[in-house]
């Protein structure tokens, strides 16, 4: 219940945060909403020497349109995303995903950047940002770089963030044309984490055939991933029952599914298949 001692800094700017982090890249941790880190600290599984609280950098919390992109600041809370009218209009997958994270208290304080940087294997955001093909903007002592979501999630709780780097922004290409979306999840009855979570971004041709399907999967493997097998199987199809049934089978291709007390690996795969289908059907049904 009680964390080990640490030092605390609340820089006013991101630059300050980067230089603080550079002072001790191993012992320092970035604190955003704290909803992944603080529970681990209370169990003393994480004992950082220094917490750099970026929650006070006001300029890091935003949702805005810029050209054909949606820019989301790292410390934007789940609730801000859930309740954003702009996003409901132009990128409804994000609010839908946000709504299924944890509970209202967690959504009020937890941040999208914290969640993505922590890369919990059962976190919700990784699935959504993968499905939306997001770019993640990382800033470090040597400047800024952009990493594709697909390359960002490396392994269990392990990302492309180099020591000393901070996730600053999530950039998403504004969905255009005829698109549908869905995030469907089996929450663990105790923790609320995704046993399986499927995010779908679906683009249709004028004849209602599938132009492109992007599917982010969380909960199934040690890290979130794009279900390329499903995506490839759907491309060009009419998205009818048979096409979806044929495609859903590929959702666990190439991954070694997790197995735990609640769900064995083959049951998890079954859930992934079923929820892939349900998410696809839901996405198809809400195409504008």
């Amino acid at each position, binding site marked *: 219940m009680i964390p080990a001692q640490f030092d605390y800094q609340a820089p006013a700017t991101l630059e300050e945060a980067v230089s603080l982090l550079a002072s001790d890249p191993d012992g320092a941790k970035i604190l955003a909403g704290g909803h992944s880190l603080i529970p681990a600290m209370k169990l003393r599984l994480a004992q950082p020497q220094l917490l750099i609280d970026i929650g006070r950098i006001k300029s890091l919390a935003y949702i805005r349109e810029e050209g054909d992109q949606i820019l989301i600041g790292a410390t934007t809370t789940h609730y801000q995303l859930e309740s954003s009218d702009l996003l409901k209009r132009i990128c409804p997958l994000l609010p839908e995903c946000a709504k299924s994270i944890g509970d209202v208290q967690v959504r009020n304080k937890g941040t999208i950047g914290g969640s993505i940087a922590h890369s919990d294997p059962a976190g919700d955001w990784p699935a959504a940002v993968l499905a939306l093909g997001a770019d993640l903007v990382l800033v470090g002592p040597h400047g800024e770089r952009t990493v594709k979501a697909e390359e960002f999630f490396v392994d269990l709780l*392990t990302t492309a963030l180099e020591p000393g780097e901070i996730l600053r922004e999530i950039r998403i290409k504004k969905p255009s044309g005829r698109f549908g979306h869905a995030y469907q999840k089996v929450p663990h009855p105790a923790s609320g984490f995704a046993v399986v979570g499927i995010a779908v971004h679906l683009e249709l041709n004028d004849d209602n055939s599938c132009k492109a399907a992007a599917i982010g999967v969380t909960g199934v493997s040690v890290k979130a991933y794009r279900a390329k097998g499903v995506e490839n199987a759907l491309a060009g199809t009419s998205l009818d029952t048979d096409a979806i049934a044929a495609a859903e089978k590929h959702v666990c291709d190439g991954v070694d599914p997790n197995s*735990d007390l609640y769900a064995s690996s083959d049951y998890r795969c079954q859930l992934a298949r079923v929820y892939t289908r349900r998410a696809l059907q839901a996405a198809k049904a809400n195409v504008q």
Partner: protein
Amino acid sequence: MKLDGTHQLEAARERVYQCLVDPEVLQRCIPGCERLEKTAENTFAATIRTGVGSIKGVFNGTARLEDLREPEHLRIVVDGKGTPGFLKGSGDLDLEQAENGTKITYAGDVQVGGTIASVGQRMIQGTAKMMATQFFTSLGAEAATQVGEPPPQHGFFRTALRWFSGWLKNIFRKQ
């Protein structure tokens, strides 16, 4: 918890075996191993600072090599205790000469206790797999060098990157 799998290393079996019984190499390959001191024949005192993401712990304990049958088999037995609990494990490693290197088949049993056991339920298996992968990836890099050459650099992050690129290659190979 059972842990098993196979790894393909691009090095000759004898070389891989040498690496496995070389404490200096082992120290570099075991993720987070800060100290590996010989205390008796094939027995070492070890300090391992390891973890995933922000979850970290320090373990002190012993590592032992058993059932040495060069160049085809050995068993590694580890036992450590630390702030987040304890970990114990043993793994049998079988080395086979394969087409372009060595195929290692491992079968082990890992036990954890204390906090990590009671709170880390959904992550333990993933962590163990990840550590095994890191170990064998590093081992592969070590074995790819010749005796007397400087060892490869493979800190935690580099190892992960190397493993990641290897994984990407594998994906492409499959397709």
